[in-house]
Each structure stands twice: as C-alpha cells, then as structure tokens.
C-alpha cells in the first residue's frame, strides 16, 4: 500500500468515526415520570454497608439531639 492510499484510508476511517459521533441518542419520554439517573439509598455506602437499620439508628440519634429537653449528645457522636 502506497503512502497516498494509506492516508486516504485513514481519512475515510476518521470521517466515518466523526460521522458516527453526530448521532442523537433516542430518548423515550414518559410523561410525568422521572427521566434522570437513578439514585442510591443513603445507607448503600461503606459506612452503613447497606444496613437501613443502622442508618435509621444514626438519624434517630441525631434527631433526638435537637431536643434540648432530652438531649443526649454522646449518642449523636
């Protein structure tokens, strides 16, 4: 293959790649339904290791520390 042919092949290949990037993603719109990325649960992480019970316990302790009539600061830490 001569140098000119090689350049032509590369140019054709590059233009094909460029054209492929111009396509628009098809989007199916569902009226009234969330269209975005899914979110994870707040307990699905390294700290709570998927335990909803542990997470709710932590939140409850924090909640109670807002009540100065029965505040337990140690449990919120």
């Amino acid at each position, binding site marked *: 293959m001569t140098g000119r042919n090689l350049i032509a092949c590369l140019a054709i290949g590059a233009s094909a790649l460029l054209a492929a990037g111009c396509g628009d993603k098809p989007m199916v719109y569902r009226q*009234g339904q969330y269209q975005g*990325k899914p979110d994870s649960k*707040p307990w699905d*992480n390294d700290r709570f290791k998927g335990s909803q019970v542990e997470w709710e316990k932590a939140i*409850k302790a924090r909640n109670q520390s*807002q*009540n100065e*009539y029965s505040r337990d600061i140690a449990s919120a830490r």
Partner: protein
Amino acid sequence: MARMKFLCDAERCIECNGCVTACKAEHEIPWGVNRRRVVTLNDGVPGEKSISVACMHCSDAPCMAVCPVDCFYKTSEGVVLHDKDLCIGCGYCFYACPFGAPQFPQDGAFGLRGKMDKCTFCAGGPEADNSEAEFKKYGRNRLAEGKLPACAEMCATKALLGGDADVISNIYRDRVTKRGKGADLWGWDAAYGKPESKPAAQPGGKS
C-alpha cells in the same frame, strides 16, 4: 421509614442567619444562590417574627408537577431532589414553589439563567454518594453519612428542626406545651398538608 421534613419555630428564630451560613459553607454555594434564607415579618415592629425558609420537600411538590422535563424525583425518605443534567433552567419550578426555593445562578452574559439549584436536605443528588461529581453539582451528602441537614443541626436556638417528621413534630409539641404559646407553624400546611382533601376554590371567590 423516616419521612424527612423541616419545621421552623418562629417563636425561637432570632434571625442570626446561622442556618444560611451553615448551608453556604457546607455546600460551597456560589454568590447569588441562596438555598436557605431568613425572612422577617413585620420587621422593626414590636413582636416581629423571623422564619428560616428553604425547600420544604413538600408532600405533593408543585415543582415536580410543573417541570416540563420531569427532572425531579422523591427519595424513599421523602426528600425532593432533581437531576441537574436534565434541568433546562426554564424557571417553571420557581413560579410554582410557594416558598421561592428554586434558585438560578446568573453569572453568565445577558442574564443567562443556569440550571436550577435548591436545598437537597443535604442528600446530594443522583450522582454516586459523596463523590466529587455529587459535591460539585449538589453539595455534600450528609444524609448518607447518617447526619441531618447542616442548617438544622447548626441552629443555635433550635428554631429550625429537620429530620424525621414524627420526631420533630413531637419535639415541637413538647415545646409548645411547656411554653404554652406559639403553636402556629408557618409553612407546615402549605408543604405537608393534603390539598386534595380541601374544597376547590370557587371562581371569583376570595382565598
């Protein structure tokens, strides 16, 4: 399952703006965007009342209903969040919100309006929890750390309560019983009432 809500006790709010500062600092919010603000009613008049206002994460959120691109979603904990990658910055949510919560950064030329920004109840967004992308777009995700919103936790007088609806309403009930006044709760009905059970407004009638 916890159902997250905000509650502002107007009898206790001293307009210190600690909640506003806590929010701004926690999420590194740019100038011009105020996810939370303190509003004073009858300012300068004896008996003035202040309330801390932000997104209340309504039960039947009007922003969700009017969004033309449906970028809002509600978590299982009742927190109203949105996907900034979908938001087109149209501002419909701002007009629909009874609390004026949606904010639009306007740092571009010709009054360019950016993507909507609002209080996330410190629950981030749909990006991976506590990732850099989530922090950049939505701020810190305290809920995933087992913490409550910074504004409520930083409130010096505990006027602003945030967290599980049952717990915070019990705290408030105790408080009202002990002090014997100030049972009126601003914004609670608007955010967490059930509008479908109320009679529809009559044409020409006064609200």
